[in-house]
């Protein structure tokens, strides 16, 4: 058996080691690859740009910590964009851990960068509600039907922003940053039944299924995986100089930095696929001989 053919039975710990190094080194020594913005992401950015100071975006945190590395930079960039552009935000979660950790942590983190914002007037955190599609149907008609109080226990009737919009259908735009099937529910229940423009931010592995909705016009845009998140970050950084300071923080894990890791790891995986096939053919030739 040739040396190349022996590679078919390489110890997988070598692969693990290379992937580990390919992840660790770019995190410690960022490369800063350029980001090219694609149409599905730009369409979401452009939609928010058309909104005015009295318009409302519903941002649903439909993901948990498992996909936070991909989804957190999306919600952070969307919030920075909305607040920089003076658009009001109603944030909620339909995924259990989205409300407990991602939503509140994200709202606290981003609103700290905008000290002029007033809770209840410029943004509201409704927290998490169980019930999936039933909750979604309720909040489309009337937020208070699904969320009688916000996450601090304040009745919605005491929050000025919630007097402005009765249900999600009265908002101007809804974005679901989702893991699993939640994004599809927003397309099927909210866009299809109420006509509210919606967009989805999803993990890279979920992105293919959403292209069917995107192409059918049931979604206005799509932020797919870390790549999509880095594109949105780039748009916000380029057009809102006030956000550059936050993104310049070396301790902040952004999608742009994550793209360095993704680039190196994809190249390692492709290299292993090529090596694996060369070894496979060498092994087959050796067996025939």
């Amino acid at each position: 058996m040739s040396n190349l053919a022996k590679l078919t039975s390489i110890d997988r710990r070598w692969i693990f080691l290379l992937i580990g190094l390919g992840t660790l080194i770019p995190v410690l020594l960022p490369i800063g690859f350029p980001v090219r913005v694609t149409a599905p992401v730009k369409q979401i950015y452009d939609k928010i740009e058309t909104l005015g100071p009295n318009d409302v975006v519903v941002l649903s945190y439909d993901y948990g910590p498992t996909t936070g590395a991909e989804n957190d930079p999306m919600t952070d960039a969307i919030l920075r964009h909305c607040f920089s552009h003076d658009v009001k935000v109603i944030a909620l979660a339909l995924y259990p851990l989205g409300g407990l950790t991602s939503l509140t942590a994200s709202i606290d983190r981003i609103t700290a960068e905008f000290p002029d914002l007033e809770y209840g007037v410029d943004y509201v955190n409704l927290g998490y509600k169980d019930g999936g599609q039933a909750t979604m149907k309720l909040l489309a008609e009337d937020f208070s039907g699904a969320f009688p109080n916000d996450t601090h226990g304040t009745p919605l009737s005491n929050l000025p922003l919630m007097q402005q919009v009765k249900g999600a259908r009265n908002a101007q735009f809804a974005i679901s940053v989702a893991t699993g099937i939640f994004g599809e529910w927003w397309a099927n229940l909210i866009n299809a039944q109420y006509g509210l423009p919606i967009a989805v931010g999803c993990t890279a592995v979920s992105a293919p299924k959403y292209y069917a909705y995107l192409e059918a016009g049931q979604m206005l845009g799509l932020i797919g995986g870390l790549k999509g998140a880095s594109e949105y970050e780039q748009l916000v950084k380029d057009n809102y100089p006030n956000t550059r300071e936050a993104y310049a923080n070396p301790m902040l894990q952004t999608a742009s930095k994550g793209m360095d890791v993704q680039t190196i790891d994809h190249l390692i995986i492709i290299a292993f696929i090529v090596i694996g096939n060369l070894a496979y053919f060498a092994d087959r030739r050796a067996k025939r001989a």
Partner: protein
Amino acid sequence: MFLKVRLPILLTFFAGLIPIVAFFFKDGTPYVKTLSSSLEQDMVIVSGFALLLGVVNVVQGNVRKIERREKGWFYAIVLLAGMAFMGLFGAAGAMRLFGLPGIGMMADGRPTPFQWGSLYLFTPLQATMFALLAFYIASAAFRAFRIRNVEATILLVAAVFVMLGRIPIGEPLFGPITEWMMQVPNGAAQRGIIIGAALGAASLSLRVILGIERSYLGLDKSE
């Protein structure tokens, strides 16, 4: 017979029919819209009970595992302890007991016990589990992506194009190809799957609403 079969079928019929009928009525239509909204609120409450059912199931399964000293029984203790910790402090926080202001942060900025468990135990553990996927995907790609036949070759080429198209180095060349692959062949296939699944779900729903499908009651067609 009535309580076990006819009543559940009647309830299912009306619960299934009301949202369909309400969809065709305008906003503000009395009775129909109100009834539909009440039903949706009830569904949220019922789904809460499903969580409780899940908790009971997890406890039963893991207690059995510990009693029988099955493989990994020690982890079952850790799981139950974690569930008890989060469950008790979550419930206490939600009911504002023991001076807890809720399940988020306290007034002085410190996390409540529930939030502490969420932030410093559950979140990193879940993120770690998902992060391990990268290693296994790399290993699986090395072993599985082989040019064995035409179908496997198409799959391999598509995967490599998409991987290159989604990184800055390969994007100028492979980005447009990736977008085309996502929009056209992938979009067409996904649309077929989604429409097929939706038609299947609609027909199954009709069968349930009309009482033809009774397996959810533990009955077969003859009963």
